[in-house]
C-alpha cells in the first residue's frame, strides 16, 4: 500500500481498507486451492471456508466497490456535491442493470436457480474477469518479448538527442519572445487606457467603447501563434523523453543483466508463439482439453521414455508446484502492472477512484483465475471447485478465454508493429 501511495495521500481510510480486504480475500482463495492439493484441514471445513470466502468476495465486488466508485466520482464533480448519495445510488443501479444485461448473450443461464444465487453472480463476474485476463495475457505475451529483446531497439546516438534538445530550446525561445511582445503590448494598453480615462471622465468612457484599440487585435493573432508553438514544444518534449528512454535501454542491454534478459526474451517469445498457436488450434478444431498438462506430461514420459514411477504420488507434488508457480507469477505480474499503471495516471483528485477501480479489477481477475486454474489441476482436485461453484459451464469459459486471448495478441502485434514503424519516420523528418 505504501508503495502505491508514495507520492500522493489517499486520505480516505475506507479506500485503503477496501483495497486490502479485497486483496486478502483473493489470496485466501488461492490458499484454499493449495490446501486442497495438500489435503490440509478437514474436507468439510474446507468446503465451508470456500463458500464463505466466495460469498464475501462477491459481496464486495458486486455491491460495495461499485457503490464507492460512484460515490467518489460524484464527489469529484463540484456541481452535484449536495445530492452525493442520491446520485451515487443512481450510478450503482445503472451499473447493476448493465451487469445483468451482460449475462444474456452468453449460454450461462440455468433456469433452476434464483436471481441472486451465487451461480448467477459468479457467472457474470467470471465473464468480465476472463475477458480481462485474456486481454492482459494477450498483450503481455506480445509485449514481453518486445521489451526484453534488444533486436527491436532503434539506434539512438547522443547527437540525435542534442539536436532534438536544441530544437526544443529554440521553440521555447520563440514562445518567450512572442509572449514578451504580448506582455509589453498589454502594459502599454493598460497605461494608455488609464491616461485616457482620468481626465475625460464620461466622454472618455463613450469614446473607448466605440474605438477599439488596435493592440487587442494584434494580441489575439499572437496568441494563436503562441498556442501552435506551445503544442510543438510539447511534442518535442515527449519525443526527447522517448529518446532518453531508448538510450537507457540500449545501455542496460549491454550489461550482464541486460544480456540475461535478452536471452529470456528469446525464450519467452518462443513460448508466446506456442501459446498463440495452441489457442488457434483450440478454436479451429473446437477442442477443449480434458486432461491437465501435468498428467499428460507424466503420461508422455512414462510412455515414451519408459521411466517408471508412481504417477499418483508425483502428480500431486508436481501439480502443487506448478499451480503455486502460476499463482505467484500471475499475482506478481498483475501487481507490477497495476503499480506502473497507477503511477502513470494518478493525480491528487482521482486517486480514490483509481484505487477502487484497481481493487475491482484485481478481485475479478482473481475470481476468474480460480475458474481457469481448474484446467491445470488433475481430476481429483477439481471436484471441490466444481462443487462450490455449481453448475457453471467451464468449457465455455476456456473457449472464451482462448478467443479473446487470440484477438488481443493479434491486435497488440499489429499495434506494436505500427508504433515501431512510425517512430523512425518521425526522426527522419528534418
Amino acid at each position, binding site marked *: 500500500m505504501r508503495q502505491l501511495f508514495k507520492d*500522493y495521500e489517499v486520505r480516505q481510510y475506507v479506500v485503503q481498507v477496501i483495497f486490502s480486504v479485497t486483496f486478502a480475500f483473493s489470496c485466501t482463495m488461492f490458499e484454499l486451492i493449495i490446501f486442497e492439493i495438500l489435503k490440509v484441514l478437514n474436507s468439510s471445513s474446507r468446503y465451508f471456508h470456500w463458500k464463505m470466502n466466495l460469498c464475501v468476495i462477491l459481496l464486495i465486488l458486486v455491491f460495495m466497490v461499485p457503490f464507492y466508485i460512484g460515490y467518489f466520482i460524484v464527489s469529484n464533480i463540484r456541481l452535484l456535491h449536495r445530492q452525493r448519495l442520491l446520485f451515487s445510488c443512481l450510478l450503482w443501479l445503472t451499473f447493476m442493470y448493465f451487469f445483468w444485461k451482460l449475462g444474456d448473450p452468453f449460454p450461462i443461464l440455468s433456469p433452476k436457480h434464483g436471481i441472486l444465487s451465487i451461480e448467477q453472480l459468479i457467472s457474470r463476474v467470471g465473464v468480465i474477469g476472463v475477458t480481462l485476463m485474456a486481454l492482459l495475457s494477450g498483450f503481455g505475451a506480445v509485449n514481453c518479448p518486445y521489451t526484453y529483446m534488444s533486436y527491436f531497439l532503434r539506434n539512438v546516438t547522443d547527437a540525435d538527442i542534442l539536436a532534438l534538445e536544441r530544437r526544443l530550446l529554440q521553440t*521555447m525561445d520563440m514562445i518567450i519572445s512572442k509572449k514578451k511582445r504580448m506582455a*509589453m503590448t498589454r*502594459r502599454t494598453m493598460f497605461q494608455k487606457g488609464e491616461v485616457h480615462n482620468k481626465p475625460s471622465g464620461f466622454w472618455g468612457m463613450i469614446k473607448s467603447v466605440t474605438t477599439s484599440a488596435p493592440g487587442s487585435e494584434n494580441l489575439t493573432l499572437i496568441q494563436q501563434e503562441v498556442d501552435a508553438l506551445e503544442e510543438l514544444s510539447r511534442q518535442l*518534449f*515527449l519525443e526527447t523523453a*522517448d529518446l532518453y528512454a531508448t538510450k537507457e535501454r540500449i545501455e542496460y542491454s549491454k550489461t550482464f543483466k541486460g544480456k540475461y534478459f535478452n536471452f529470456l526474451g528469446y525464450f519467452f517469445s518462443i513460448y508466446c508463439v506456442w501459446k498463440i498457436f495452441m489457442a488457434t488450434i483450440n478454436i479451429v478444431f473446437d477442442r477443449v482439453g480434458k486432461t491437465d498438462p501435468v498428467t499428460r506430461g507424466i503420461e508422455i514420459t512414462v510412455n515414451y521414455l519408459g521411466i517408471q514411477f508412481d504417477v499418483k504420488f508425483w502428480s500431486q507434488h508436481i501439480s502443487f508446484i506448478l499451480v503455486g508457480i502460476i499463482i505467484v507469477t500471475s499475482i506478481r505480474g498483475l501487481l507490477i502492472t497495476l503499480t506502473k499503471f497507477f503511477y502513470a495516471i494518478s493525480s491528487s483528485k482521482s486517486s480514490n477512484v483509481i484505487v477502487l477501480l484497481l481493487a475491482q479489477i484485481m478481485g475479478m481477475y482473481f475470481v476468474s483465475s480460480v475458474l481457469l486454474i481448474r484446467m491445470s489441476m488433475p481430476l481429483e482436485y477439481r471436484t471441490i471447485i466444481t462443487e462450490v461453484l455449481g453448475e457453471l459451464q467451464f468449457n465455455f469459459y476456456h473457449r472464451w478465454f482462448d478467443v479473446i486471448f487470440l484477438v488481443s495478441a493479434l491486435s497488440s502485434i499489429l499495434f506494436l508493429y505500427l508504433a515501431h514503424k512510425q517512430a523512425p519516420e518521425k526522426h527522419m523528418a528534418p
Partner: protein
Amino acid sequence: MASLDRVKVLVLGDSGVGKSSLVHLLCQNQVLGNPSWTVGCSVDVRVHDYKEGTPEEKTYYIELWDVGGSVGSASSVKSTRAVFYNSVNGIILVHDLTNKKSSQNLYRWSLEALNRDLVPTGVLVTNGDYDREQFADNQIPLLVIGTKLDQIHEGKRHEVLTRTAFLAEDFNAEEINLDCTNPRYLAAGSSNAVKLSRFFDKVIEKRYFLREGNQMTLSPICWQMFSIWIPGFPDRKRFGGGTLKSLHYD
C-alpha cells in the same frame, strides 16, 4: 521595446499544486479558468519594474518557466527536464498547503534543479538526501509559495502555517501563502505583493549587479571543509547564512 534585459525563474513543484494557475495569475493578473495538465514546460513573461519608485527604476522581463511533472518520474523524463534548468537565476518552489507530501517533495525538487547549476566545489554531493550545506552556499534566490490556502479549515491554519514557516527557513527563503483563484492575495500594496517584488528584485540584483559576489564563494568552501574534518562543527546555517548575506549586500 523587445530589448529589455531578461531574467529566468523556474517554477517547480508537484503535479496539481497549482503552478500553472500561479504563473497565470502573476503574469496576466487574471485567474486561470480551466487548468489542465502541463506537459513539458510552459513559459510566461512578467514585466517587472526593478526598484520601483526610485530614480534607478528599470524595467525587466521575468520569464517564469513552469516545468510539469512529478519527482518520482522515470529517469528519462528527469533527463529531459534537466534541459530547462540551464542558467537559472531564481527558483519559486510551490507546494500545496492541503497536501503534506508536496511540501516534503520540495527538497527533492530543489536538489534536482540546483544540482545542475552548482559550481563544483570538490565536495561529494549525496544523492537525494537533503543536505543543509548545499543550501547555505546557494547563490540562487528561492521563494516558497503555498497554495490552496482557502481550503484549509480555520482551526488548522495555525499549525499549517508554522510548519510552512519551518520549511521556508530550511531553504533560507521567504514564503508566501495564497489562493491562486483569488487575485486579492497579490493586490498591490499587500505584504505578499511586497515580498514578491522583493524576491524579483533580489533575482535581478544577483544576475546583473553583483558580479563581485562570485568572489565570496571561497568562504563557503572553507565552511564545508571545516564541517567535514571536525564532526562536531556547530550548525553554521543559523549564523553562517546570516553573515554571508550581510557580506553580500553592501
